[in-house]
Protein backbone atom coordinates (compact mmCIF):
# COMPACT_ATOMS: atom_id res chain seq x y z
CA UNK A 1 0.00 0.00 0.00
CA UNK A 2 2.79 2.36 0.70
CA UNK A 3 3.93 2.02 -2.87
CA UNK A 4 0.45 2.59 -4.16
CA UNK A 5 0.46 5.82 -2.27
CA UNK A 6 2.95 7.26 -4.64
CA UNK A 7 1.37 5.94 -7.77
CA UNK A 8 -1.47 8.16 -9.03
CA UNK A 9 -4.85 6.42 -9.17
CA UNK A 10 -6.20 8.75 -11.79
CA UNK A 11 -4.13 10.75 -14.17
CA UNK A 12 -5.17 13.17 -16.91
CA UNK A 13 -2.53 14.02 -19.49
CA UNK A 14 -3.02 16.92 -21.88
CA UNK A 15 -6.73 16.25 -22.12
CA UNK A 16 -8.90 18.40 -24.38
CA UNK A 17 -12.55 18.05 -25.25
CA UNK A 18 -15.29 19.83 -27.20
CA UNK A 19 -19.00 19.08 -27.44
CA UNK A 20 -19.60 21.10 -30.56
CA UNK A 21 -17.01 21.57 -33.23
CA UNK A 22 -15.72 25.06 -32.53
CA UNK A 23 -15.37 25.48 -28.79
CA UNK A 24 -12.92 23.71 -26.45
CA UNK A 25 -14.70 22.98 -23.18
CA UNK A 26 -11.70 21.23 -21.64
CA UNK A 27 -8.46 22.78 -22.78
CA UNK A 28 -5.32 20.78 -22.37
CA UNK A 29 -5.72 19.74 -18.76
CA UNK A 30 -3.20 17.59 -16.87
CA UNK A 31 -3.31 16.49 -13.27
CA UNK A 32 -3.23 13.40 -11.14
CA UNK A 33 -4.94 12.09 -8.05
CA UNK A 34 -3.24 9.82 -5.58
CA UNK A 35 -4.50 7.36 -3.05
CA UNK A 36 -6.42 9.00 -0.22
CA UNK A 37 -6.55 12.36 -1.92
CA UNK A 38 -9.69 14.43 -1.46
CA UNK A 39 -9.97 17.22 -3.96
CA UNK A 40 -12.58 19.94 -4.15
CA UNK A 41 -13.23 21.05 -7.70
CA UNK A 42 -14.25 24.68 -7.93
CA UNK A 43 -15.03 26.89 -10.86
CA UNK A 44 -17.67 29.10 -12.38
CA UNK A 45 -20.80 27.71 -13.99
CA UNK A 46 -19.90 26.34 -17.36
CA UNK A 47 -16.18 26.23 -16.57
CA UNK A 48 -16.12 22.50 -17.30
CA UNK A 49 -16.30 20.77 -13.92
CA UNK A 50 -18.96 18.28 -14.90
CA UNK A 51 -17.32 17.71 -18.24
CA UNK A 52 -14.01 16.96 -16.53
CA UNK A 53 -15.64 14.45 -14.18
CA UNK A 54 -17.42 12.78 -17.08
CA UNK A 55 -14.16 12.54 -18.98
CA UNK A 56 -12.42 11.08 -15.95
CA UNK A 57 -15.12 8.48 -15.54
CA UNK A 58 -14.83 7.42 -19.15
CA UNK A 59 -18.33 8.45 -20.22
CA UNK A 60 -16.94 11.03 -22.56
CA UNK A 61 -13.94 10.33 -24.75
CA UNK A 62 -11.30 13.08 -24.85
CA UNK A 63 -10.56 14.58 -28.25
CA UNK A 64 -6.86 14.65 -27.42
CA UNK A 65 -4.77 13.44 -24.50
CA UNK A 66 -5.30 10.43 -22.32
CA UNK A 67 -6.85 9.54 -19.01
CA UNK A 68 -5.25 6.81 -16.94
CA UNK A 69 -6.80 4.84 -14.14
CA UNK A 70 -4.11 2.89 -12.30
CA UNK A 71 -1.66 3.34 -15.17
CA UNK A 72 -4.08 2.03 -17.79
CA UNK A 73 -6.30 4.06 -20.09
CA UNK A 74 -9.67 4.38 -18.37
CA UNK A 75 -11.37 3.52 -21.64
CA UNK A 76 -9.45 0.26 -21.91
CA UNK A 77 -10.95 -1.30 -18.77
CA UNK A 78 -13.73 -3.83 -18.94
CA UNK A 79 -16.71 -1.89 -17.64
CA UNK A 80 -17.32 -4.02 -14.56
CA UNK A 81 -13.69 -3.78 -13.52
CA UNK A 82 -13.73 -0.05 -13.93
CA UNK A 83 -16.92 0.22 -11.89
CA UNK A 84 -15.21 -1.52 -9.00
CA UNK A 85 -12.39 1.00 -9.11
CA UNK A 86 -14.21 4.18 -9.97
CA UNK A 87 -17.66 5.57 -9.37
CA UNK A 88 -19.25 8.69 -10.84
CA UNK A 89 -22.29 10.39 -9.34
CA UNK A 90 -24.02 12.65 -11.89
CA UNK A 91 -25.26 16.12 -11.12
CA UNK A 92 -28.78 15.79 -12.53
CA UNK A 93 -30.97 13.11 -11.02
CA UNK A 94 -34.05 13.24 -13.21
CA UNK A 95 -35.57 9.81 -12.70
CA UNK A 96 -39.25 9.48 -13.54
CA UNK A 97 -39.57 5.73 -13.12
CA UNK A 98 -40.92 4.79 -9.70
CA UNK A 99 -38.12 2.57 -8.51
CA UNK A 100 -38.08 1.95 -4.80
CA UNK A 101 -35.34 3.40 -2.65
CA UNK A 102 -33.91 0.00 -1.75
CA UNK A 103 -33.97 -1.12 -5.38
CA UNK A 104 -31.96 1.90 -6.40
CA UNK A 105 -29.45 1.62 -3.59
CA UNK A 106 -29.13 -2.10 -4.37
CA UNK A 107 -28.02 -1.23 -7.88
CA UNK A 108 -24.71 -0.20 -6.37
CA UNK A 109 -24.01 -3.93 -6.09
CA UNK A 110 -24.37 -4.54 -9.81
CA UNK A 111 -20.65 -4.64 -10.58
CA UNK A 112 -20.14 -7.37 -8.00
CA UNK A 113 -21.02 -11.02 -7.80
CA UNK A 114 -20.62 -11.11 -4.01
CA UNK A 115 -21.48 -7.98 -2.01
CA UNK A 116 -18.05 -6.77 -0.90
CA UNK A 117 -18.63 -3.60 1.06
CA UNK A 118 -21.41 -2.27 3.17
CA UNK A 119 -24.94 -3.58 2.78
CA UNK A 120 -27.89 -1.66 1.41
CA UNK A 121 -29.26 -1.28 4.94
CA UNK A 122 -26.02 0.15 6.23
CA UNK A 123 -25.86 2.60 3.36
CA UNK A 124 -29.45 3.70 3.94
CA UNK A 125 -28.58 4.13 7.61
CA UNK A 126 -25.58 6.26 6.69
CA UNK A 127 -27.68 8.68 4.64
CA UNK A 128 -30.57 8.70 7.09
CA UNK A 129 -33.08 6.91 4.91
CA UNK A 130 -33.43 3.69 6.86
CA UNK A 131 -37.09 4.43 7.40
CA UNK A 132 -37.90 4.79 3.73
CA UNK A 133 -36.56 1.72 1.93
CA UNK A 134 -39.90 1.09 0.22
CA UNK A 135 -40.70 4.66 -0.76
CA UNK A 136 -40.78 5.42 -4.45
CA UNK A 137 -38.02 7.75 -5.54
CA UNK A 138 -40.61 9.86 -7.34
CA UNK A 139 -42.24 10.62 -3.98
CA UNK A 140 -39.12 11.91 -2.24
CA UNK A 141 -37.96 15.45 -1.67
CA UNK A 142 -34.94 16.49 -3.72
CA UNK A 143 -32.54 16.25 -0.82
CA UNK A 144 -33.78 12.77 -0.05
CA UNK A 145 -33.33 11.81 -3.68
CA UNK A 146 -29.77 13.02 -3.65
CA UNK A 147 -29.13 10.92 -0.56
CA UNK A 148 -30.54 7.81 -2.23
CA UNK A 149 -27.92 8.12 -4.92
CA UNK A 150 -25.18 8.85 -2.41
CA UNK A 151 -26.16 5.61 -0.68
CA UNK A 152 -25.92 3.84 -4.02
CA UNK A 153 -22.41 5.22 -4.43
CA UNK A 154 -21.46 4.01 -0.96
CA UNK A 155 -22.71 0.53 -1.74
CA UNK A 156 -20.73 0.47 -4.94
CA UNK A 157 -17.66 1.21 -2.80
CA UNK A 158 -15.16 2.12 -5.49
CA UNK A 159 -11.64 3.31 -4.74
CA UNK A 160 -12.08 6.64 -6.45
CA UNK A 161 -15.24 8.66 -6.26
CA UNK A 162 -16.13 11.38 -8.76
CA UNK A 163 -18.99 13.31 -7.21
CA UNK A 164 -20.71 16.07 -9.15
CA UNK A 165 -22.12 18.56 -6.64
CA UNK A 166 -23.28 15.97 -4.13
CA UNK A 167 -24.04 18.74 -1.66
CA UNK A 168 -26.67 20.32 -3.86
CA UNK A 169 -30.07 20.07 -2.16
CA UNK A 170 -28.60 18.49 0.99
CA UNK A 171 -29.46 20.10 4.29
CA UNK A 172 -26.68 21.25 6.57
CA UNK A 173 -26.74 18.11 8.65
CA UNK A 174 -26.28 15.78 5.73
CA UNK A 175 -23.70 18.09 4.21
CA UNK A 176 -21.70 17.64 7.37
CA UNK A 177 -22.41 13.93 7.63
CA UNK A 178 -21.47 13.35 4.01
CA UNK A 179 -18.22 15.24 4.45
CA UNK A 180 -17.39 13.27 7.62
CA UNK A 181 -18.27 10.01 5.95
CA UNK A 182 -16.10 10.75 2.93
CA UNK A 183 -13.19 11.80 5.11
CA UNK A 184 -13.54 8.58 7.04
CA UNK A 185 -13.55 6.56 3.81
CA UNK A 186 -10.49 8.41 2.66
CA UNK A 187 -8.64 7.92 5.94
CA UNK A 188 -9.62 4.32 6.59
CA UNK A 189 -9.66 2.89 3.10
CA UNK A 190 -7.45 5.31 1.23
CA UNK A 191 -10.27 6.17 -1.13
CA UNK A 192 -9.62 9.09 -3.46
CA UNK A 193 -12.35 11.64 -4.02
CA UNK A 194 -12.89 14.45 -6.48
CA UNK A 195 -15.93 16.50 -5.81
CA UNK A 196 -17.34 19.43 -7.71
CA UNK A 197 -18.89 21.98 -5.41
CA UNK A 198 -19.88 25.61 -5.24
CA UNK A 199 -19.86 26.25 -1.50
CA UNK A 200 -16.55 27.89 -0.76
CA UNK A 201 -17.13 27.69 2.97
CA UNK A 202 -17.12 23.94 2.64
CA UNK A 203 -14.20 23.98 0.26
CA UNK A 204 -12.23 25.63 3.03
CA UNK A 205 -12.46 22.40 5.00
CA UNK A 206 -10.73 20.47 2.21
CA UNK A 207 -7.06 19.64 2.21
CA UNK A 208 -6.81 20.25 -1.48
CA UNK A 209 -8.81 22.22 -3.97
CA UNK A 210 -8.55 22.70 -7.69
CA UNK A 211 -9.78 25.85 -9.34
CA UNK A 212 -10.71 25.77 -13.01
CA UNK A 213 -11.73 28.41 -15.47
CA UNK A 214 -12.88 27.97 -19.03
CA UNK A 215 -11.57 24.43 -19.18
CA UNK A 216 -8.13 25.21 -17.80
CA UNK A 217 -6.70 24.64 -14.33
CA UNK A 218 -5.95 27.89 -12.51
CA UNK A 219 -4.32 26.15 -9.59
CA UNK A 220 -4.26 23.13 -7.34
CA UNK A 221 -3.28 23.08 -3.70
CA UNK A 222 -4.42 23.88 -0.20
CA UNK A 223 -7.38 26.22 0.16
CA UNK A 224 -5.00 28.73 1.71
CA UNK A 225 -2.91 28.82 -1.40
CA UNK A 226 -5.63 28.62 -3.97
CA UNK A 227 -8.67 30.39 -2.61
CA UNK A 228 -7.00 33.76 -2.48
CA UNK A 229 -8.74 36.96 -3.27
CA UNK A 230 -6.96 37.23 -6.61
CA UNK A 231 -7.53 33.67 -7.73
CA UNK A 232 -11.21 33.84 -6.76
CA UNK A 233 -11.50 37.09 -8.62
CA UNK A 234 -9.93 35.45 -11.64
CA UNK A 235 -12.09 32.33 -11.49
CA UNK A 236 -15.43 33.85 -10.65
CA UNK A 237 -15.01 37.51 -11.47
CA UNK A 238 -16.26 38.52 -8.05
CA UNK A 239 -14.66 40.26 -5.10
CA UNK A 240 -14.73 37.95 -2.11
CA UNK A 241 -12.15 37.06 0.43
CA UNK A 242 -11.43 34.27 2.83
CA UNK A 243 -11.15 35.47 6.39
CA UNK A 244 -9.14 33.40 8.78
CA UNK A 245 -9.53 33.51 12.53
CA UNK A 246 -6.72 32.87 14.93
CA UNK A 247 -7.78 29.42 16.09
CA UNK A 248 -8.23 27.76 12.74
CA UNK A 249 -11.74 28.65 11.61
CA UNK A 250 -11.96 30.25 8.22
CA UNK A 251 -14.87 31.62 6.30
CA UNK A 252 -15.79 33.63 3.26
CA UNK A 253 -16.32 37.31 3.61
CA UNK A 254 -18.70 38.61 0.99
CA UNK A 255 -17.30 42.05 1.68
CA UNK A 256 -19.48 44.80 0.30
CA UNK A 257 -21.35 42.50 -1.99
CA UNK A 258 -24.52 42.72 0.00
Amino acid at each position, binding site marked *: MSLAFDRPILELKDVSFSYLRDKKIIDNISFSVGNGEFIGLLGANGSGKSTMLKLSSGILRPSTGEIKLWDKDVLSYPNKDRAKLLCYLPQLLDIN*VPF*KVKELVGMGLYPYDIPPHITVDEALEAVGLSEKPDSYITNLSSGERRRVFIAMTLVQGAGILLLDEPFANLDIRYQIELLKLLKELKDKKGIAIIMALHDINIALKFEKVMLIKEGRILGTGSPDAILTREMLKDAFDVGIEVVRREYGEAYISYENNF
Partner: protein
Amino acid sequence: MSKIKITVLMLVAIIIFLSALFIGPRIINPFRMGDMEKEILFSIRFPRVVVAILVGMALGASGAILQGVLRNPLADPYILGISSGASLSAAFALLSGIYSFGRFTIPLTAFLGASAVSVLVGVFGWRRGGLWPERLLLAGVGLSFLFHSVLMLLMSISTDEGLRRAVLWIFGDLSMADWSLIPYGLVFIVSGLIISVSRSKALNALILGDEFAHSLGFSIHKERFMLFISMALMTGASVSLGGTIGFIGLLIPHIMRFVAGADSRVLIPLSAIGGGAFLCLADLIGKSIMTPMEIPSGIITAIIGSPYFLYLLRRKDVLSI
Protein backbone atom coordinates in the same frame (compact mmCIF):
# COMPACT_ATOMS: atom_id res chain seq x y z
CA MET B 1 -42.33 -11.19 -2.43
CA SER B 2 -41.46 -11.16 -6.09
CA LYS B 3 -40.57 -14.87 -5.84
CA ILE B 4 -44.11 -15.54 -4.66
CA LYS B 5 -45.59 -13.51 -7.48
CA ILE B 6 -43.56 -15.39 -10.04
CA THR B 7 -44.59 -18.74 -8.54
CA VAL B 8 -48.27 -17.86 -8.49
CA LEU B 9 -48.13 -16.68 -12.07
CA MET B 10 -46.32 -19.88 -13.05
CA LEU B 11 -49.11 -21.95 -11.50
CA VAL B 12 -51.75 -19.96 -13.31
CA ALA B 13 -49.79 -20.43 -16.52
CA ILE B 14 -49.67 -24.20 -16.02
CA ILE B 15 -53.41 -24.36 -15.38
CA ILE B 16 -54.06 -22.37 -18.54
CA PHE B 17 -51.67 -24.60 -20.44
CA LEU B 18 -53.50 -27.75 -19.35
CA SER B 19 -56.92 -26.29 -20.01
CA ALA B 20 -55.85 -25.28 -23.48
CA LEU B 21 -54.72 -28.85 -24.09
CA PHE B 22 -57.68 -30.73 -22.69
CA ILE B 23 -60.61 -28.37 -22.86
CA GLY B 24 -60.28 -26.62 -26.22
CA PRO B 25 -63.33 -26.36 -28.45
CA ARG B 26 -64.36 -29.80 -27.21
CA ILE B 27 -63.16 -31.53 -24.08
CA ILE B 28 -60.69 -34.38 -24.35
CA ASN B 29 -60.62 -36.80 -21.45
CA PRO B 30 -56.94 -37.63 -21.01
CA PHE B 31 -57.75 -41.07 -19.65
CA ARG B 32 -60.04 -42.20 -22.43
CA MET B 33 -58.61 -41.02 -25.70
CA GLY B 34 -59.50 -42.56 -29.03
CA ASP B 35 -57.27 -42.33 -32.08
CA MET B 36 -58.87 -39.13 -33.20
CA GLU B 37 -58.47 -37.52 -29.80
CA LYS B 38 -54.81 -38.49 -29.74
CA GLU B 39 -54.31 -37.08 -33.18
CA ILE B 40 -55.99 -33.83 -32.23
CA LEU B 41 -54.15 -33.58 -28.96
CA PHE B 42 -50.67 -34.30 -30.22
CA SER B 43 -50.52 -32.94 -33.71
CA ILE B 44 -52.92 -30.06 -33.45
CA ARG B 45 -53.40 -28.78 -29.94
CA PHE B 46 -50.00 -29.42 -28.47
CA PRO B 47 -47.96 -27.56 -31.06
CA ARG B 48 -50.47 -24.76 -31.10
CA VAL B 49 -50.38 -24.30 -27.35
CA VAL B 50 -46.60 -24.36 -27.40
CA VAL B 51 -46.47 -21.76 -30.15
CA ALA B 52 -48.94 -19.57 -28.27
CA ILE B 53 -46.81 -19.72 -25.15
CA LEU B 54 -43.59 -19.04 -27.03
CA VAL B 55 -45.03 -16.13 -28.96
CA GLY B 56 -46.65 -14.65 -25.85
CA MET B 57 -43.44 -14.94 -23.87
CA ALA B 58 -41.44 -13.36 -26.64
CA LEU B 59 -43.81 -10.44 -26.97
CA GLY B 60 -44.19 -9.81 -23.23
CA ALA B 61 -40.44 -9.84 -22.65
CA SER B 62 -39.68 -7.79 -25.77
CA GLY B 63 -42.16 -5.14 -24.70
CA ALA B 64 -40.65 -4.86 -21.23
CA ILE B 65 -37.19 -4.54 -22.77
CA LEU B 66 -38.10 -1.95 -25.38
CA GLN B 67 -40.06 0.25 -22.99
CA GLY B 68 -36.95 0.36 -20.83
CA VAL B 69 -34.37 0.77 -23.56
CA LEU B 70 -36.35 3.48 -25.32
CA ARG B 71 -37.52 4.94 -21.99
CA ASN B 72 -40.99 5.26 -23.47
CA PRO B 73 -44.24 3.75 -22.18
CA LEU B 74 -45.67 3.61 -25.69
CA ALA B 75 -42.97 1.35 -27.04
CA ASP B 76 -43.95 -2.16 -28.06
CA PRO B 77 -42.12 -4.86 -29.99
CA TYR B 78 -43.70 -3.71 -33.24
CA ILE B 79 -42.90 -0.02 -32.87
CA LEU B 80 -39.53 -0.38 -34.52
CA GLY B 81 -41.07 -1.75 -37.69
CA ILE B 82 -39.94 -5.32 -37.17
CA SER B 83 -43.40 -6.66 -37.74
CA SER B 84 -44.15 -4.50 -40.74
CA GLY B 85 -40.85 -5.58 -42.26
CA ALA B 86 -41.69 -9.21 -41.59
CA SER B 87 -45.19 -8.83 -42.96
CA LEU B 88 -43.91 -7.07 -46.02
CA SER B 89 -41.43 -9.75 -46.87
CA ALA B 90 -43.94 -12.52 -46.12
CA ALA B 91 -46.46 -10.72 -48.28
CA PHE B 92 -43.93 -10.53 -51.10
CA ALA B 93 -43.56 -14.27 -50.89
CA LEU B 94 -47.33 -14.77 -50.76
CA LEU B 95 -48.15 -12.40 -53.56
CA SER B 96 -45.39 -13.47 -55.87
CA GLY B 97 -46.27 -17.08 -55.23
CA ILE B 98 -42.73 -18.10 -54.43
CA TYR B 99 -43.03 -21.33 -52.57
CA SER B 100 -39.61 -22.80 -52.85
CA PHE B 101 -39.26 -23.66 -49.18
CA GLY B 102 -42.63 -25.32 -48.89
CA ARG B 103 -44.36 -24.64 -45.67
CA PHE B 104 -41.28 -22.91 -44.31
CA THR B 105 -41.57 -20.20 -46.92
CA ILE B 106 -43.76 -17.77 -44.99
CA PRO B 107 -42.09 -18.12 -41.59
CA LEU B 108 -38.69 -17.99 -43.19
CA THR B 109 -39.32 -14.92 -45.31
CA ALA B 110 -40.98 -13.26 -42.32
CA PHE B 111 -37.95 -13.95 -40.19
CA LEU B 112 -35.60 -12.67 -42.86
CA GLY B 113 -37.70 -9.52 -43.16
CA ALA B 114 -37.65 -9.02 -39.40
CA SER B 115 -33.90 -9.42 -39.28
CA ALA B 116 -33.34 -7.06 -42.18
CA VAL B 117 -35.46 -4.39 -40.52
CA SER B 118 -33.70 -4.86 -37.19
CA VAL B 119 -30.40 -4.26 -38.90
CA LEU B 120 -31.77 -1.21 -40.67
CA VAL B 121 -33.22 0.28 -37.49
CA GLY B 122 -29.89 -0.39 -35.83
CA VAL B 123 -28.09 1.45 -38.61
CA PHE B 124 -30.36 4.47 -38.32
CA GLY B 125 -30.19 4.42 -34.53
CA TRP B 126 -26.41 4.35 -34.62
CA ARG B 127 -24.28 7.39 -34.07
CA ARG B 128 -20.89 7.98 -32.53
CA GLY B 129 -20.25 4.32 -31.74
CA GLY B 130 -23.57 3.33 -30.23
CA LEU B 131 -27.33 3.09 -30.33
CA TRP B 132 -29.32 6.07 -29.07
CA PRO B 133 -32.83 5.63 -27.73
CA GLU B 134 -34.45 8.68 -29.37
CA ARG B 135 -32.89 7.80 -32.68
CA LEU B 136 -33.88 4.15 -32.49
CA LEU B 137 -37.38 5.17 -31.66
CA LEU B 138 -37.85 7.73 -34.40
CA ALA B 139 -36.00 5.63 -36.97
CA GLY B 140 -38.15 2.63 -36.06
CA VAL B 141 -41.33 4.63 -36.44
CA GLY B 142 -40.22 6.00 -39.79
CA LEU B 143 -39.22 2.60 -41.14
CA SER B 144 -42.34 1.03 -39.76
CA PHE B 145 -44.47 3.51 -41.66
CA LEU B 146 -42.47 2.95 -44.80
CA PHE B 147 -42.76 -0.82 -44.81
CA HIS B 148 -46.32 -0.82 -43.70
CA SER B 149 -47.34 1.45 -46.50
CA VAL B 150 -45.35 -0.42 -49.11
CA LEU B 151 -47.25 -3.49 -47.95
CA MET B 152 -50.51 -1.65 -48.26
CA LEU B 153 -49.52 -0.47 -51.70
CA LEU B 154 -48.77 -4.02 -52.74
CA MET B 155 -52.06 -5.13 -51.35
CA SER B 156 -54.03 -2.40 -52.99
CA ILE B 157 -52.64 -3.10 -56.44
CA SER B 158 -52.79 -6.87 -56.16
CA THR B 159 -55.79 -9.06 -56.65
CA ASP B 160 -58.46 -9.13 -54.02
CA GLU B 161 -57.68 -12.66 -52.97
CA GLY B 162 -54.11 -11.72 -52.16
CA LEU B 163 -55.35 -8.80 -50.13
CA ARG B 164 -57.50 -10.99 -47.97
CA ARG B 165 -54.71 -13.45 -47.32
CA ALA B 166 -52.12 -10.88 -46.45
CA VAL B 167 -54.52 -9.11 -44.12
CA LEU B 168 -55.27 -12.33 -42.33
CA TRP B 169 -51.63 -13.04 -41.86
CA ILE B 170 -51.05 -9.60 -40.39
CA PHE B 171 -53.87 -10.11 -37.93
CA GLY B 172 -51.89 -12.91 -36.42
CA ASP B 173 -52.73 -16.54 -36.61
CA LEU B 174 -51.66 -19.45 -34.51
CA SER B 175 -53.68 -22.09 -36.28
CA MET B 176 -50.89 -23.14 -38.59
CA ALA B 177 -48.68 -24.14 -35.70
CA ASP B 178 -47.13 -27.55 -36.17
CA TRP B 179 -44.11 -29.25 -34.72
CA SER B 180 -41.81 -28.53 -37.60
CA LEU B 181 -41.31 -24.84 -36.80
CA ILE B 182 -41.21 -25.04 -33.05
CA PRO B 183 -37.56 -26.02 -32.66
CA TYR B 184 -36.45 -22.94 -34.59
CA GLY B 185 -38.77 -20.64 -32.71
CA LEU B 186 -37.70 -22.19 -29.45
CA VAL B 187 -34.03 -21.59 -30.15
CA PHE B 188 -34.49 -17.93 -31.01
CA ILE B 189 -36.97 -17.12 -28.29
CA VAL B 190 -35.18 -18.98 -25.53
CA SER B 191 -31.88 -17.43 -26.41
CA GLY B 192 -33.55 -14.03 -26.53
CA LEU B 193 -35.05 -14.66 -23.11
CA ILE B 194 -31.76 -15.82 -21.66
CA ILE B 195 -29.93 -12.80 -23.01
CA SER B 196 -32.55 -10.41 -21.73
CA VAL B 197 -32.84 -11.95 -18.27
CA SER B 198 -29.06 -11.98 -17.96
CA ARG B 199 -29.12 -8.31 -19.03
CA SER B 200 -31.92 -7.22 -16.75
CA LYS B 201 -29.59 -5.41 -14.38
CA ALA B 202 -28.21 -3.45 -17.28
CA LEU B 203 -31.74 -2.56 -18.30
CA ASN B 204 -32.44 -1.22 -14.82
CA ALA B 205 -29.32 0.88 -15.04
CA LEU B 206 -30.14 2.15 -18.51
CA ILE B 207 -33.55 3.25 -17.29
CA LEU B 208 -31.74 5.50 -14.80
CA GLY B 209 -29.86 7.06 -17.65
CA ASP B 210 -26.63 6.55 -19.51
CA GLU B 211 -24.43 8.19 -16.91
CA PHE B 212 -25.63 5.96 -14.12
CA ALA B 213 -25.44 2.88 -16.28
CA HIS B 214 -21.86 3.68 -17.18
CA SER B 215 -20.89 4.35 -13.60
CA LEU B 216 -22.49 1.09 -12.49
CA GLY B 217 -20.18 -0.83 -14.80
CA PHE B 218 -22.23 -1.31 -17.93
CA SER B 219 -21.04 -0.56 -21.40
CA ILE B 220 -24.10 1.42 -22.38
CA HIS B 221 -23.75 0.82 -26.08
CA LYS B 222 -22.96 -2.84 -25.73
CA GLU B 223 -25.82 -3.45 -23.32
CA ARG B 224 -28.24 -1.53 -25.43
CA PHE B 225 -27.05 -3.53 -28.39
CA MET B 226 -27.46 -6.84 -26.58
CA LEU B 227 -30.92 -5.92 -25.37
CA PHE B 228 -31.81 -4.80 -28.85
CA ILE B 229 -30.58 -8.09 -30.28
CA SER B 230 -32.51 -10.13 -27.74
CA MET B 231 -35.64 -8.14 -28.53
CA ALA B 232 -35.09 -8.55 -32.27
CA LEU B 233 -34.55 -12.30 -31.94
CA MET B 234 -37.70 -12.77 -29.94
CA THR B 235 -39.87 -10.42 -31.94
CA GLY B 236 -38.64 -11.75 -35.26
CA ALA B 237 -39.24 -15.35 -34.21
CA SER B 238 -42.64 -14.53 -32.76
CA VAL B 239 -43.77 -12.70 -35.89
CA SER B 240 -42.66 -15.57 -38.06
CA LEU B 241 -44.45 -18.09 -35.84
CA GLY B 242 -47.68 -16.24 -35.26
CA GLY B 243 -47.89 -13.04 -37.26
CA THR B 244 -48.57 -9.74 -35.59
CA ILE B 245 -50.44 -10.06 -32.32
CA GLY B 246 -51.28 -6.83 -30.56
CA PHE B 247 -51.76 -5.85 -26.96
CA ILE B 248 -49.36 -8.29 -25.30
CA GLY B 249 -46.14 -6.51 -26.12
CA LEU B 250 -47.45 -3.10 -25.15
CA LEU B 251 -49.74 -3.67 -22.21
CA ILE B 252 -48.63 -6.87 -20.45
CA PRO B 253 -45.44 -5.11 -19.26
CA HIS B 254 -47.56 -2.25 -17.92
CA ILE B 255 -49.89 -4.64 -16.14
CA MET B 256 -46.90 -6.43 -14.62
CA ARG B 257 -45.41 -3.11 -13.59
CA PHE B 258 -48.67 -2.22 -11.85
CA VAL B 259 -48.54 -5.57 -10.08
CA ALA B 260 -44.88 -6.00 -9.26
CA GLY B 261 -43.02 -2.72 -9.75
CA ALA B 262 -40.43 -1.43 -12.16
CA ASP B 263 -37.44 -3.66 -11.38
CA SER B 264 -36.52 -5.31 -14.69
CA ARG B 265 -35.11 -8.38 -12.98
CA VAL B 266 -38.66 -9.24 -11.98
CA LEU B 267 -40.43 -7.45 -14.78
CA ILE B 268 -38.87 -9.34 -17.68
CA PRO B 269 -39.64 -12.84 -16.40
CA LEU B 270 -43.08 -11.81 -15.24
CA SER B 271 -43.90 -10.19 -18.56
CA ALA B 272 -42.70 -13.30 -20.38
CA ILE B 273 -44.73 -15.72 -18.26
CA GLY B 274 -47.72 -13.41 -18.21
CA GLY B 275 -47.56 -12.89 -21.96
CA GLY B 276 -47.30 -16.62 -22.63
CA ALA B 277 -50.12 -17.57 -20.30
CA PHE B 278 -52.31 -14.79 -21.58
CA LEU B 279 -51.86 -15.55 -25.26
CA CYS B 280 -52.51 -19.21 -24.56
CA LEU B 281 -55.73 -18.28 -22.78
CA ALA B 282 -56.79 -15.88 -25.51
CA ASP B 283 -56.19 -18.50 -28.15
CA LEU B 284 -58.19 -21.04 -26.19
CA ILE B 285 -61.08 -18.63 -25.98
CA GLY B 286 -60.73 -17.56 -29.60
CA LYS B 287 -61.07 -21.06 -30.92
CA SER B 288 -63.73 -22.21 -28.47
CA ILE B 289 -66.17 -19.37 -28.34
CA MET B 290 -67.63 -19.61 -31.83
CA THR B 291 -66.70 -23.09 -32.98
CA PRO B 292 -66.16 -24.07 -35.72
CA MET B 293 -65.01 -20.55 -36.53
CA GLU B 294 -61.79 -19.25 -35.06
CA ILE B 295 -61.35 -15.71 -33.84
CA PRO B 296 -57.74 -14.55 -34.23
CA SER B 297 -56.10 -14.48 -30.82
CA GLY B 298 -54.81 -10.95 -31.30
CA ILE B 299 -58.42 -9.84 -31.17
CA ILE B 300 -59.23 -11.78 -28.04
CA THR B 301 -56.12 -10.62 -26.18
CA ALA B 302 -57.20 -7.03 -26.57
CA ILE B 303 -60.85 -7.65 -25.84
CA ILE B 304 -60.20 -9.32 -22.51
CA GLY B 305 -56.96 -7.59 -21.69
CA SER B 306 -57.93 -3.97 -22.25
CA PRO B 307 -60.75 -3.82 -19.71
CA TYR B 308 -58.47 -5.37 -17.10
CA PHE B 309 -55.74 -2.93 -17.94
CA LEU B 310 -58.14 -0.01 -17.72
CA TYR B 311 -59.40 -1.28 -14.39
CA LEU B 312 -55.85 -1.43 -13.03
CA LEU B 313 -55.16 2.01 -14.41
CA ARG B 314 -58.07 3.50 -12.54
CA ARG B 315 -57.07 1.83 -9.32
CA LYS B 316 -53.38 2.61 -9.27
CA ASP B 317 -51.92 5.84 -8.04
CA VAL B 318 -48.33 5.47 -9.14
CA LEU B 319 -47.74 5.01 -12.85
CA SER B 320 -44.47 3.72 -14.22
CA ILE B 321 -41.92 4.38 -16.97
